[in-house]
């Protein structure tokens, strides 16, 4: 065992157990996804030790838990960067040269999509559509939107975040 603190996971499980979602002392398998979402929100990712604990506690096989985690894009088995850059790859962004934005981010950060920079500051993701097509091409850093982007702006924005600033 490494030093992952299991207390937050225990709290989440106890809370769910106390609520109506529980039957016969077991967490309903149907509740697995919201459970994993809560754990990820608390830890920032899904540490293996925590998943083993969840499996033992709930009786849901670890293989099944991993099956679910690897199916969905928004579950992470590795720690994520301090900031997450989400580049929109929707149709409107594609028409407005979104590929170039995505390529530029990758070039500036020196990582591929889905990876985290070595210094742990940025994780780079692309998403199917952010639903803000009027801002195309658009990216998000954490909860901030950056719309009508040109590839030249990107390195400046990233630099600002890297130096501890925000938008």
């Amino acid at each position, binding site marked *: 065992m490494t030093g992952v603190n299991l207390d937050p996971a225990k709290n989440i499980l106890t809370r769910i157990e106390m609520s109506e979602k529980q039957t016969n002392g077991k967490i309903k398998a149907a509740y*697995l*996804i*919201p459970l994993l979402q809560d754990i990820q929100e608390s830890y920032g990712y899904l540490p293996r030790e925590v998943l083993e604990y969840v499996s033992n506690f709930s009786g849901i096989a670890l293989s099944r838990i991993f*099956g679910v985690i690897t199916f969905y894009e928004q579950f992470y088995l590795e720690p994520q960067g301090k900031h997450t850059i989400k580049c929109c790859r929707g149709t409107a962004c*594609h028409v*407005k040269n979104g590929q170039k934005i995505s390529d530029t981010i990758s070039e500036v950060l020196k990582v591929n999509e889905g990876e985290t920079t070595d210094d742990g500051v940025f994780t780079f993701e692309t998403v199917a559509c952010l639903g*803000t097509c009027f801002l*195309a091409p658009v990216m998000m850093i954490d909860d901030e939107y950056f719309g009508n982007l040109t590839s030249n702006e990107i390195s400046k924005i990233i630099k600002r975040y890297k130096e501890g600033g925000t938008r």
Partner: protein
Amino acid sequence: MTISELKLLQKEFLSRSKKIKHKVYICTTGCRASGALNLVTEFEKIRKEMSLEDQLEIIQSGCHGKCSQAPLIRLEPSGYYYGKVRSEDVKEIIEKTILEDEKIDRLFTGSAHLETTGFFGHQKKDLLAACGQVDPRKIEEAIGAGSYLALADVLTRLSPEEVIGQVMESGLKGRGGAGFSTGLKWKFCHQAKGDEKYLICNADEGDPGAFMDRALLEGSPHQVIEGMIVAAYAIGASQGFIYVRAEYPIAVEHISLAVRQAGDYGLLGQNIFDSGFDFNITIRKGAGAFVCGEETALIASLEGKRGMPRSRPPFPANSGYLGKPTNINNVETLANIPLIIGKTGKVYSETGTENSTGTKIFALAGDVQNTGLVEVPMGITLREIIFDIGGGIPGGRKFKAAQMGGPSGGCVPEKYLDLPIDYESLKEVGAIMGSGGLIVMDDRSCMVDMAHYFLEFIQKESCGKCVPCRVGTRHMKDILARICSGKGESGDIEKLEELAGTVKSSSLCALGQTAPNPVLTTLKYFRSEYEEHIYSKKCLALTCKDLLSYEILGGSCTGCGLCRKNCPVGAISGERKGIHAINPNTCIQCGKCFEVCRFTAVNVS
């Protein structure tokens, strides 16, 4: 809660609201990305400074529709829409427009009253009537605008069969993509045997380029909840789910709040309107899988499994969530229900065309002046939407195609601009109504590249369960990638057509069955573009970068050296103040020289 209590609440709200003459509606949903919350703070600050608290009401509303002008506000009683408003403009707006009734031309972008053409005038806002008119975080405002009256009517006056009858008569078809009769779907679930039934609201709006459901959930969540309760009553469900995309944080926030408030007011829970009918809603966030928009995949995801579709029958109406009868409707479909009950199915069916009734919301985006959210009656033409409401193509460029229906849809060419849009007509031209994404493309968009884009998307989102979709789309994508990179061969088009036929006819779910549509429609209407790519190795839209060549025009080059400094591969040579040249063997067609040249001396062909 009883009907008279609901009506009293409405009356109280309206008389309270009437007391304040001036109102500013600030969109704080979609426009939040453009700094709308700062405007709220500024309006509040200046209102306080000028002691206008009892004269000016500030309402944080949903989307006004003209998102290209974000942040957008509306002023009442003038009805003026002001766009691209900055904090610095707020004082002037209050002093001039609110207090002196003077229009500020610089900010003016349309009027809610009197206009009959253009972006605001040409639309028919039935579904979006409350969106932009109420603060979606306050149930009192929704009740003031008439929410839950239709529900009260249903629960106290109509039987489930009568509700289904009204919906059947309305002719409403599912707005999520497939366009199946909503009334019929309810009837099947109503008739299904079992005392435990479920109702699911599909808010997993994954189609790239679509944001209608986001706007409804953010701007008028109670309309969706009311529709859900009516649907649940009709089919006999006491538990409902809203499966919402996690990529929509504001939608999650507003719908969660609305569900809580509806519970507090007794509009959800036990014995709603003293009718003996119980209904609860649980909100579930998606975890980032496009295929979960497919109903059986969505149910699998709700059950805590990998979100993979299964073959039908049995249909969810008979065997859905946990094997129980389940009805799934899309957000926009459910938002139609209170309208239908309010005006009767017959009156509702008078809008639109014979087989496609009502209005439809489109998310207008791409190469069009007024990007945003528009609601129009079925049967309107694309030309009306793109050129009158949308304001045409920016920069005087030429319309090339409209992509409708996302990855399951197709590209509609210029010759169909005057086609009345409904479910049937779009199907005939090879596109689909889909959920309502409408991306306009001008002559700079390459149709082969578009087809490649969608196939790449589908390939990535294919769940992998069935072979035609998993392997077929992969091959199609690879062929398209080859064509785009100049390595297309004779026979590729035929191979694409053959694969498209197989994938379409033998995939398990709608994701695979419709995946070839972007390829088939572009092949049908823009076949010559494929041929140019394959045989002449040319991309006339100048999109496919491997097919481009860059050269420096001697007559325009000043020898500034900017291109040379910016070239990432050192392909450009030349003396300072002398004419530069690009070595085609080293050039990687990145386009950097074209971008940085200030003398338009770089030519791309």
